[in-house]
């Protein structure tokens, strides 16, 4: 085997590439992924979490190749799956997922019609795959269309799509192991070999889907647990949520309050070739540097805080079970932006913060386990679904569905832990009353000393 075609990877060992895959990886458009950190600013909590979309995409490509060997008969489809995994994150921009809500807010509505908020980078990925001149050198028009179709589910049988975008796809199979390794935690570890070898293709009413043999049930449980632990411990770590929200707020303020024109252009995706060309020039460090050059703006101030790790602090946290009144619960978790903005203003006014720097945020895990529950489990004589087979999954599923509500602000808790807890309780007490007031405007709001202490 030609050693020039191998890459040594800390997660999977040697990753072998065909010559055309190596050439594709060596393009500028692909090498840009080296400058996008996989977990944005998670290294402010987990020191080692500086790995990139490039590393992860190669890992997903490697796993897709392994899965293809076991599950896909056609050589051309195996090739497509590897390429789709290789290119699945090509459309990510600076700080990856963090800026997706801003893209949605500032891009033409008709362009995003039918696309979920978290999927805009997939539209950009499709544009890059279809239009980028460097990629055109190595992939035919037909191949590029098929790759896009595989990624969005419009080409081929369902199981092919599921291998690159499904509940147990190559993407997740890589990022759990990789994020766990680089974060220095052991939560994302599962038996990847066993999982891959027990997956199979199942004919579900003329549609072919990914299923698992009963022998792999525990490997799948381990995978689901790994995802749950990584979600609660790393992806939804309190500091990580704060840094993500600070980035998003800084960009939003940079566009809406500071009027930074280049920033607005960067987040106004219009599907044009010019936009894509410009978009490809940006990565994490460039965005950080350029925003820090915009002196005396909100965006600069927040990015400076991020660079110096002077982070906002959590001043309120509650989950859905803390709100017994259904109207309040509905208001907090389904009331969306209007409620968030009103509450942010109220808090800012009461405590003397700049309202731009108060961030109300709903943390939801709803989508995390939804689709695993329906994975067919094949026995010798019958077929069931995963959530009926796994007692463990039910409790994880229940827990992961809980929604949380956080508020962040630029405060400094002072004194020992007891005093800090007291300050937090004071914030919480007052904010709870504000939430009640917003949900039930006819009620009187009393923010007296007694209730605050």
């Amino acid at each position, binding site marked *: 085997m030609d050693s020039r075609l191998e890459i040594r990877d800390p997660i999977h060992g040697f990753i072998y590439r065909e010559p055309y895959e190596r050439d594709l990886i060596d393009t500028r458009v692909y090498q840009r992924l080296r400058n996008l950190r996989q977990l944005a600013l998670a290294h402010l909590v987990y020191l080692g979490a500086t790995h990139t979309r490039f590393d992860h995409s190669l890992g997903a490509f490697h796993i897709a190749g392994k899965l293809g060997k076991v599950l896909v008969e056609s050589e051309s489809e195996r090739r497509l799956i590897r390429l789709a995994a290789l290119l699945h994150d090509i459309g990510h921009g600076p700080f990856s997922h963090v800026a997706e809500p801003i893209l949605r807010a500032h891009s033409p509505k008709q362009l995003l019609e*039918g696309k979920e908020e978290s999927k805009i980078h997939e539209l950009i990925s499709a544009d890059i795959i279809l239009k980028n001149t460097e990629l055109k050198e190595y992939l035919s028009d037909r191949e590029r269309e098929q790759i896009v179709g595989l990624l969005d589910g419009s080409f081929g049988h369902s199981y092919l799509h599921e291998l690159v975008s499904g509940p147990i796809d190559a993407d997740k199979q890589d990022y759990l192991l990789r994020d766990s390794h680089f974060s220095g935690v052991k939560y994302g570890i599962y038996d990847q070999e066993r999982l891959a070898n027990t997956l199979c293709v199942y004919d579900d009413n003329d549609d072919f889907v990914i299923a698992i043999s009963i022998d792999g049930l525990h490997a799948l449980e381990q995978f689901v647990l790994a995802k749950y632990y990584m979600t609660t411990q790393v992806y939804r770590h309190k500091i990580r949520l704060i840094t993500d929200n600070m980035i998003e707020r800084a960009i939003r303020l940079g566009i809406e309050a500071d009027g930074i024109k280049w920033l607005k252009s960067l987040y106004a995706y219009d599907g044009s070739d010019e936009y894509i060309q410009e978009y490809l020039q940006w990565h994490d460090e460039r965005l950080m540097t350029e925003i820090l050059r915009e002196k005396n703006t909100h965006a600069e101030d927040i990015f400076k805080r991020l660079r110096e790790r002077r982070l906002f602090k959590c001043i309120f946290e509650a989950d*859905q079970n803390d709100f017994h009144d259904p109207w309040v619960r509905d208001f907090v978790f389904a009331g969306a932006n209007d409620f968030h903005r009103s509450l942010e203003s109220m808090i800012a006014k009461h405590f003397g913060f700049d309202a731009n720097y108060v961030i109300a945020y709903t943390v939801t895990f709803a989508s995390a386990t939804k689709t695993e529950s329906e994975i067919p489990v094949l026995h010798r004589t019958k077929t069931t679904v995963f959530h009926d087979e796994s007692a463990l999954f039910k409790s994880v599923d229940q827990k992961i569905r809980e929604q949380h509500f956080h508020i962040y602000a630029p405060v400094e808790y002072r004194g020992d832990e007891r005093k800090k807890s007291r300050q937090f309780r004071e914030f919480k007490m007052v904010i709870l009353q504000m939430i009640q007031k917003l949900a039930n405007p006819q009620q009187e709001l009393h923010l007296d000393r007694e209730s605050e202490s």
Partner: protein
Amino acid sequence: MRATDFLLCVIDASGGAIRGRTLLQKRAFFVSELTGIDAGLRFDAHYYGPYSTTVESAATQLQNLGFIQESNTGFGSVSGGFEVRRYDYSLTEDGVRLLVPLRGTREHQEIRNAISRMASAGDPNYVELSIAAKAYFLIKRKGGGMSVLELQKQAEKYNWSISPKSIEHAVNFLLSVDLASKA
């Protein structure tokens, strides 16, 4: 109207419960078409017919917040050994409380009327409603009348298999609820 409120009203107007995920999707589809209420549902062509991920996530959200509950019932195995399950949705006490102010709204009344029209048109089960939804989706996408043969051909493009007889039933339903006119 928020998608979660829309769905609560659809379940309420259906007697407080809907049997099956497919029925929930298709009722939401036809109520949305009959009332013209904008709840941002966005139906796309899926294997099982017009399908909205917004309906799915709104149902999950309502379930997570304790406003509806999902229960499932097994119906034994079919050929190939797959166990068939049906997922039913019903309003909880908190869901009913949340509906109190919604019940006085124009949208709630329109949703009730739409469900009544569907009931008067034969109250199709999920399979019939699913075929009617596919047929309507194709006719609307073409922007006009289609023959049974044309409908069948178009359906194949989406991997939808519809027999001429079931198309006839579907068209009768669409005519009854005024969503189609005879060519």
